[in-house]
């Protein structure tokens, strides 16, 4: 009997229509756990590095987290993995909601799509019965409508649906896969789904999911619930309200946006508006949000209510579900001061299925090019005069790949190079060809420098977490903070926090020492990698400060759920390190090198090139990677990944690095 996982994957070849239920190898679970870990392994084993992301040979993997569907609160993530058409590297994006548990109850850990369907289709997985169904009537439909139509057609309101909109159908490089109140948005996974002519996946399951050591498992779950309740009454002090509680940032419940609107940049990640948040704005935004949010909603088996049903009288479509800070990304990108615009365009954009981080930045970039004469009225016929109008205009062009939209649909990096004429200079906020959170700061932060530069997710929110983003000015407050900070992995990290000052000897950039900086990065990243394998939501685990899941209870939870015996050392230093190095190797094989490991040029005003180079050197060493950021053969061998090292060697990738260094 298999525990926590089902032990089966569903393989669907869309070219031939062949469907197979395949038993998985338990040894792979022991090596990689599930979710991202085994997804990465499949990608490494089965998709050659030369593969064009939009070609039929690419795989699209919907992998459930190892604990998804078990009683562990918030364990509901689907990890979607493929090669990205935008970054050309591995893309993985997680979605919450209800899809992963339902897939487990249907009897599968993953659905793996290969090939390309000759016609637009959707998949209906109903326990053992799996069908490929015609989706021609769904072509061009928005995701909310698609989901509703499919449920009606299947006569099953309990079916869970993940789908793409027009953007995915048209292979927009930042098209998302949308499901209920969640989405797998980053790096163009929706485009890959579109390239396979796959409109949607619907799933319904009514089978049991087993737990190896039920008594222990439920005891840990109860502790997690108790702590969630305790934290609700005990928010973290000295941080903005949006970061004080658990869950994804509580954008739907909290209307205080002082922090996002004044600390993040507006437009094409350009302008800080430190004076933006006034009492008047607050009153008005409160009124708008209160009118728009109909109900706060959760993902499967989670009490946090990070999402909301949005119903607004002026909406083009009747209702949709929203999460996180997509209500602000369009507002800030368009330099629009009105939140209502945010709710309107976010609803429309979500229906089309685009990433709400990237899309507004591409549009803001296009407006800058227009204002600077690089794009002209010829490129943008009948371009409206106001930014809000322009955003609606650009959105329609992009999702249809119409006119200039065909170029903008590739994201800022590629569009800048295709447009030329100086457009590259306006590509100010990408890492590895991918749009980043619009934050511009003063003093280099060595820990964030490493996380921005080296993260394989290419998105800071999926690497950072648990550590307050700035030092508390008062020493007593810092000492108070660490008193019940049992989540910290070591005394060294607590010491760092107590010492850490806004300025002086114990301030950035030369504090902390290299070793501590590396430890801080590795801890934060490791916690995300654990979540990405278990499918526990980062909002209860790796992301917020003082979360209910942490490095001291997760190994026991995973062991009790699966029946494996994993302690902290095995989890952190073996399994997660193995997954981390495997991802690095996958991207190395796709061409990633040290030169790509860098933050956006203007992320910090004060930069320290020598110190930064040293930081990278030390971090690579700490990780067991060579000076090009490639995991060494010894490192890979020690992680039971010798075949990976062998492959890198055969391809001459280690010599490559060497040559670059010599030249």
């Amino acid at each position, binding site marked *: 009997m298999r525990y926590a996982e089902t032990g089966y994957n569903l393989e669907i070849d869309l070219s031939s229509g062949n469907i197979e239920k395949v038993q998985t190898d338990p040894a792979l679970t022991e090596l990689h756990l599930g979710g991202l870990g085994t997804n990465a392994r499949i990608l490494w084993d089965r998709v050659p590095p030369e593969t064009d992301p939009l070609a039929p040979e690419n795989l699209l993997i919907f992998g459930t987290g190892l604990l998804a*569907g078990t009683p562990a609160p918030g364990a509901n993530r689907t990890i979607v993995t493929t090669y990205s058409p935008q970054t050309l590297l591995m893309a993985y994006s997680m979605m919450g909601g209800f899809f992963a548990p339902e897939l487990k109850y249907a009897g599968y850990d993953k659905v793996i799509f290969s090939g390309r369907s000759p016609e637009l289709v959707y998949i209906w997985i109903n326990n053992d019965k799996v069908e490929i169904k015609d989706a021609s009537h769904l072509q061009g439909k928005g995701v909310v409508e698609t989901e509703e139509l499919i449920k009606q057609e299947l006569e099953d309101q309990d079916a869970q649906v993940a789908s793409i909109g027009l953007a995915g159908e048209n292979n927009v490089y930042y098209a998302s896969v949308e499901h209920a109140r969640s989405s797998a948005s980053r790096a163009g996974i929706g485009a890959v789904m579109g390239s396979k002519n796959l409109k949607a996946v619907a799933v319904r399951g*009514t089978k*049991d999911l087993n737990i190896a050591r*039920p*008594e222990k498992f439920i005891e840990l779950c109860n502790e997690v619930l108790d702590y*969630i309740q305790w934290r609700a009454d005990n928010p973290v002090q000295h941080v903005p309200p949006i970061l004080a509680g658990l869950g994804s940032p509580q954008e739907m419940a909290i209307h205080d946006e002082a922090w996002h609107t004044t600390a993040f940049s507006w437009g094409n990640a350009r302008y800080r508006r430190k004076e933006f948040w006034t009492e008047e704005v607050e009153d008005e935004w409160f009124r708008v949000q209160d009118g728009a949010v109909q109900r706060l909603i959760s993902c499967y088996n989670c009490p946090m*209510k990070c999402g909301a049903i949005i119903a607004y009288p002026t909406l083009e479509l009747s209702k949709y579900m929203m999460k996180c800070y997509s209500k602000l990304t369009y507002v800030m990108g368009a330099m629009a001061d009105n939140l209502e615009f945010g709710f309107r365009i976010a609803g429309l954009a979500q229906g089309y299925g685009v990433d709400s981080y990237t899309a507004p930045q591409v549009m803001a970039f296009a407006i800058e090019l227009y204002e600077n004469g690089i794009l002209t009225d010829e490129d943008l016929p009948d371009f409206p005069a106001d930014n809000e109008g322009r955003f609606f205009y650009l959105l329609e062009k992009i999702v249809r790949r119409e006119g200039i939209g065909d170029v903008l649909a590739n994201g800022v990096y590629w569009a800048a190079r295709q447009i030329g004429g100086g457009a590259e200079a306006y590509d100010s906020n990408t890492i590895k060809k991918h749009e980043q959170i619009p934050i511009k700061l003063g003093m280099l932060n060595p820990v964030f420098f490493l996380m921005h530069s080296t993260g394989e997710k290419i998105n800071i929110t999926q690497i950072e977490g648990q550590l307050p983003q700035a030092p508390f000015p008062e020493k007593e407050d810092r000492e108070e903070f660490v008193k019940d900070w049992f989540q910290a992995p070591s005394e060294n990290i607590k010491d760092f926090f107590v010492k850490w000052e806004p300025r002086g000897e114990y301030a950035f950039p030369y504090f902390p020492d290299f070793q501590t900086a590396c430890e801080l990065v590795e801890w934060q990243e490791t916690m995300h990698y654990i979540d990405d394998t278990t499918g526990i939501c980062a909002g209860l685990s790796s992301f917020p400060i003082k979360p209910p899941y942490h490095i001291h209870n997760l190994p026991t939870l995973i062991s009790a759920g699966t029946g494996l015996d994993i302690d902290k050392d095995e989890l952190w230093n073996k399994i997660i390190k193995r997954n981390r190095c495997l991802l690095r190797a996958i991207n190395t094989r796709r061409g990633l090198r040290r030169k790509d490991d860098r933050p956006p040029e203007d992320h910090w005003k004060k930069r320290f090139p020598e110190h930064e180079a040293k930081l990278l050197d030390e971090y690579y060493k700490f990780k067991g990677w060579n000076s090009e950021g490639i995991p060494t053969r010894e490192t890979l061998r020690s992680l039971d990944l010798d075949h990976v090292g062998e492959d890198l060697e055969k391809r001459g990738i280690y010599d490559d690095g060497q040559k670059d260094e010599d030249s």
Partner: protein
Amino acid sequence: MMGKKTKTVKVINIDLEKCNGCRACEMICSAFHASEKYSSNNPARSRIRMIRRPLEDIYLPIYAGEYTAAECMGRDKYVIDGKEYDECDFCRASCPSREAFKEPDSGLPLKCDMCEDDPPQEEPLCVKWCLSDALTYEIREEEVEDEEEEEQKDLTQKEMERSIKALADRYGLDKVANSMARLLKKE
């Protein structure tokens, strides 16, 4: 002569406004009732069912009540605050007209037993796991006439009777009797 005596009434209060649709109630009910407690879970076996239609703002937890052999003569359909509920949405019965409240494999009826347990649970599990307080629990004492009470059968016996009745309804009494006879012979 008839005397008075007190009876314990267990109530789960349901506040639809507070429900966030997380289905923790379904999950934990099914886990609690697994044959080794919490050894498996499967919301399809739950004795509480979430009727969820997010875009219509319909979030309705319904508890499994009595098994019924035949569906109702008529159907009811509610509209509340402009929200249209489906036929039978509010009904608690395990009924031939629908899938809800039946074991997914055997089709045997499910019924909420208020998490009866020995020693007793502090509160029903669905209530405990509903941190949003959409479900809350209350016990109160009521005075009732001390009539001759129906003999208290133990719980398993009641469940057995219900299951056999359901099987008989489904496959015919003859067939069930035959199978039983065959089984007994084997032993």
